[in-house]
Each structure stands twice: as structure tokens, then as C-alpha cells.
């Protein structure tokens, strides 16, 4: 059985935040009377991650995804629980540990803003104590994979967001980390650039058997890169497993897309399932997953069907379903 490279047991991280009353008088009052409230950013989460796994942290804004990543990378001190990454306690920030992981934040810049990216790469080479040979080999590979050879000597502030993100990734990967924490790595990028980065991350995982933990609001990132999903809501884990299992558990319906040879009425279509969209010669139906095959053959035999497709609902809809189910359970 493979040993987990990351082990998190009953992790909690709480923050004390100042609660200000609205308005001018509230500001004046806060001079002598400050109210604080405790925010449970992460609340009793446990999980293990094995070497080479690719995990997607899924959750709404403020769910605790980024906080968990920050604890795993040693930036935040846990309020409770145990965390071990590569056998180290991240909070101790030992250099032997720091040489084996990298944290990339899509909204943060680790490159020196006023200097060309190559300068930051040279600095990271020194910080991570890489040999000339090692550095050149990795740099050449990364530059080629990400196709940024022509921007290495241009000031970072003059690069496009996509070029900058690619260079951020290079800076973070020069020491070929075994564990990679990616926080919204494709945020703000156009679809082509998103795809390029996803392909690159997948390649990196395969090539180095690196463990990758990713948070993203783009479900396509998770779908394409990750083989396991960890859904977090209000600081608590609500699902941990294969993406396929998530779909099976929470996608109640399948989507049937139909094209007809003759017009079919909506009333007729409603006999087979929930009509999501329809015009005279095409329609989209939602049918319970268990009955999808049966309903498809019924449609083929009873209606003038020219073409029929059975599809899973988009992953965004499934995730919405997960959160709605959780909210319903909470209210019950």
C-alpha cells in the first residue's frame, strides 16, 4: 500500500476578525470598543494524499480551500490538528522540506516585477541550491514546454497575464518539486492559455510523478487535471473521492439530446422526462440516471428520432447539486 505524502488529521484553522458596525458612528465606536468574531476557515478536516495523486479542492468562495493549502505549505499555523507533508511538519519551515514543494498562487506574484523573469529564475537557482547543469536542463525543458523563450528577458510588468503565469510556473518548478500546490493557476486566462497550462500540469505530473493539489473555480481544470476531488464547504469536507464517484453520487439525471425527422410537441416529450429545451425538431430532456437507457430506447421506438445522445450533466451543475444537498441537510 502506498504511503501518503500528505496526511491531515482533524485540521482546524480559525481566524479572529474585527466586526465593525456600519457607518461613521460605527467607525468612531470601534476606536474604543472593538467586537471580534471567530471565523472557522477550516473546521476539523482530515484526509490523506498519496504520491503522484492529482487532487482538486472544490468549494465556493471562502470555503477554506486556500487556507488549507496555506497550512500545508507552512504559511499558516493550524489552530488544531496534525499536518504532515513529505514527513515534515510544514509549520517548522525546514529547508529540506521547502526544497521539495512549491506553491503557486494565481493572484500573487513571486517574480520580481521590475526585472525580467530570467533574473528571478537565477535567484531561485541560488535559493534552491541547484547545480548549473540541473538548472539549465530544467529551465530549457520548462521554457520549451510552455513556449516562453522569447519573453525571458522582458520586464515582468510588461508581460501579458498568460506569459506571466507561465513564468510563475517556471519559477516555482525549477527545483522540480515533489509536491505542487496550485491555487487558481488559470484565473483570468483565456481558454487557449487555460488549456496550455492544464496540459502542462498534466505532463508535469506524469513526468515527475509529482503530487498535485489544485484549487480552481474552473471546473474544467479539475476535470482535466485531477483524478480525485475533495469538496469543502464552510470549512468542512463534504466529499472526498474519485471525480466519477462524485458524478455518480450527485448527478441525479442524465441529459438526452434529441434530433427529430418530424416535429414533436412538448406535451408528447414531457411523457419521457423533464423538458429543458425544445423546438419542433430538437429537444433536450433530463431523465433519472437509472432510467436513461430504458427511456432512450423508448424514445427511439415511439418518436421519429434521427439522432440521440446521452450525456452527463456539466460538472458545475453537479457541484451545485452537492452544495444544495448539503444546504438542505443543514436546514433539516
Amino acid at each position, binding site marked *: 500500500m502506498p504511503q501518503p505524502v500528505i496526511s491531515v488529521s482533524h485540521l482546524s484553522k480559525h481566524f479572529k476578525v474585527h466586526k465593525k458596525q456600519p457607518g461613521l458612528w460605527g467607525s468612531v465606536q470601534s476606536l474604543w470598543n472593538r467586537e471580534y468574531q471567530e471565523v472557522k476557515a477550516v473546521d476539523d478536516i482530515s484526509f490523506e494524499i498519496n504520491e503522484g495523486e492529482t487532487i482538486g479542492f472544490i468549494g465556493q468562495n471562502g470555503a477554506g480551500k486556500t487556507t488549507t493549502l496555506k497550512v500545508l505549505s507552512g504559511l499558516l499555523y493550524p489552530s488544531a490538528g496534525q499536518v504532515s507533508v513529505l514527513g515534515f511538519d510544514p509549520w517548522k519551515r525546514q529547508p529540506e522540506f521547502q526544497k521539495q514543494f512549491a506553491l503557486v498562487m494565481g493572484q500573487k506574484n513571486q517574480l520580481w516585477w521590475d526585472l525580467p523573469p530570467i533574473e528571478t529564475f537565477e535567484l*531561485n537557482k541560488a535559493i534552491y541550491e541547484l547545480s548549473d547543469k540541473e538548472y539549465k536542463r530544467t529551465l530549457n525543458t520548462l521554457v520549451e514546454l510552455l513556449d516562453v523563450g522569447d519573453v525571458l528577458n522582458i520586464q515582468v510588468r510588461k508581460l501579458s497575464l498568460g506569459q506571466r503565469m507561465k513564468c510563475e510556473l517556471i519559477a516555482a518548478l525549477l527545483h522540480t518539486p515533489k509536491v505542487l500546490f496550485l491555487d487558481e493557476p488559470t484565473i483570468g486566462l483565456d481558454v487557449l492559455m487555460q488549456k496550455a497550462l492544464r496540459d502542462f500540469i498534466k505532463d508535469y505530473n506524469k513526468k515527475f510523478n509529482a503530487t498535485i493539489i489544485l484549487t480552481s473555480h474552473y471546473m474544467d481544470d479539475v476535470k482535466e487535471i485531477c483524478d480525485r476531488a475533495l469538496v469543502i464547504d464552510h470549512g468542512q469536507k463534504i466529499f472526498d473521492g474519485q471525480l466519477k464517484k462524485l458524478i455518480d453520487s450527485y448527478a441525479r439525471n442524465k441529459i438526452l439530446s434529441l434530433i427529430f425527422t418530424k416535429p414533436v410537441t412538448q406535451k408528447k416529450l414531457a411523457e419521457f422526462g423533464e423538458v429543458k429545451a425544445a423546438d419542433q425538431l430538437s429537444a433536450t430532456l433530463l431523465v433519472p440516471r437509472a432510467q436513461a437507457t430504458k427511456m432512450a430506447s423508448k424514445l427511439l421506438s415511439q418518436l421519429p428520432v434521427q439522432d440521440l445522445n446521452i450525456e452527463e450533466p456539466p460538472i458545475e451543475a453537479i457541484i451545485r447539486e452537492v452544495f444544495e444537498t448539503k444546504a438542505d441537510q443543514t436546514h433539516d
Partner: protein
Amino acid sequence: MTKYIQLLKLSWQNGFVYRTSLFMWRFRQFLSSVMSLTVWTVIYTSQSSVLGYDQTQMITYIFLSAFLQSCILATALNSLSGRVYSGEISAQLVKPISLFGYLAIEDVADKLRNIFFILIETSLLYLIFIPTIPLPTLLNGALFVLAVLMGAVMNFIINLLFGAIGFWSPDTWGPKFMFFIMVEFTAGKLFPLDILPPILEKLLYLTPFPYFSFVQTQIFLGRLDSVQIFWQLASLAGWIVGLYLVTRWIWQRGLRDYAAAGQ
């Protein structure tokens, strides 16, 4: 060690990016010295000694103050609390490099840049005013250099201390402003502290402020005997150790409360 040398190179380069700001700032420093030197030169046309300083000593004092301002008091860490509060230091915290070491190198690069310019400016001032500058003895010169280095270290630690406020609040301007005002009047930048009433001067020696430039000028000018120099350096060392221990403790507490903001 290579990492710190590489960082020093980068910090040095980075300081030259905004050339206009850099040259304007240096020009301001230059003008400030010209003004002081002009005022004191005029004062000495009518009298040979003012407040116990003859013209040569006072002009040397002005030259030294300008030099010490750049070597000891100027710092790259004025915005450290903002960097802490905004989570900017996270990039350094996750890397195998000491954060204090990183910040120290940024500060050293800033000071080296200042020294580079102050040497040019001093040469120009020398050509304009042709002053007589009495050089210290070899021993006093060496002790002066040591006191300057120690003053710079103390200022670095105090800046770390102010930076730590960023762990809890973005509101650092108040205490920093008070500190600047105190430095302005009590470090000996505007006037030598020994012109103050003796009781006030003694009280000031209970604070770290005279060690930001006044004590160094006194060593250079030969106004302190060897015993006095020893005690002044010992006090300065005491301040450094004491402030470092407090700073380290506060940073350890601060890093536990650090929110690594930014997302």
C-alpha cells in the same frame, strides 16, 4: 551564501529601475546638505566658535550627518508592515531562505546604493565648499566604522519591529511617524546633541536615538575618550541584543497569527 549574493545583485539592480525617482531623491539629499553647509558657513563668518564647535568641526559634522543619514537611517524596509499585512512576505516564507536574511540583504543593497551616491555628492560638496575635514586617528576611524555598522544593525532591527505591526494591523503610520519625529530631533541630524541642557542629553542617552548618528560623529571628531567610546559601544551592543530578542519574540508570535492574506 550564493543565494544572498544573488539576492544582493538583484536588489541592487531593482533599485535602479525608477531612475527619475532615484535621482530626484538624491538631489533632495544633496540640496539639504548644501543648505546646511551654506547656513553654517555664513554663521561662522562672524564668530569662530558656536556651541563649543569650531567651523571645521561643524562642517565636518554636517558632512558626517549626511553620510550617516544614508548609511544608518535610510532603509528599504519602510513599507515592511504593509508587505506583512498584504501577505507579500508569503513568497519568501515558503522558500528555503531566512526571511530576516532576505530583508537584511534588501537593506544592505539599499545602503550600498546610497553610499555610491553619497560618495559622488560628497565629492561635489567638497569641490563647492573646499572644507577642512580633520581625519580621525586610525583607531578612532576603525571604531567609527564599527559604530556605523552597529547603528545600521540597530536601525534594521527597529524596522523589523515596526514591520511586525503588520501581523495585526495595517495601521502603522502613527507609531512610525512618532519614531521619525524622535529621530529627527534626537539622533543629531539637525544639531549636535551636546548643545542641549546636560539633563536632557543624559535622558536621551537612555534611548537608542543618539546611536543613530550622534555618537558616531563624536567618535570621528575625537570628542570622546577611549573609556567613553567603550561604554557607548557597549550600550549600543546592549540595545542591539535587547531589541533583537524582543523583535524575535514578536515575530514568532506574529507568524503564528499571520493570515497570509491576498486571496
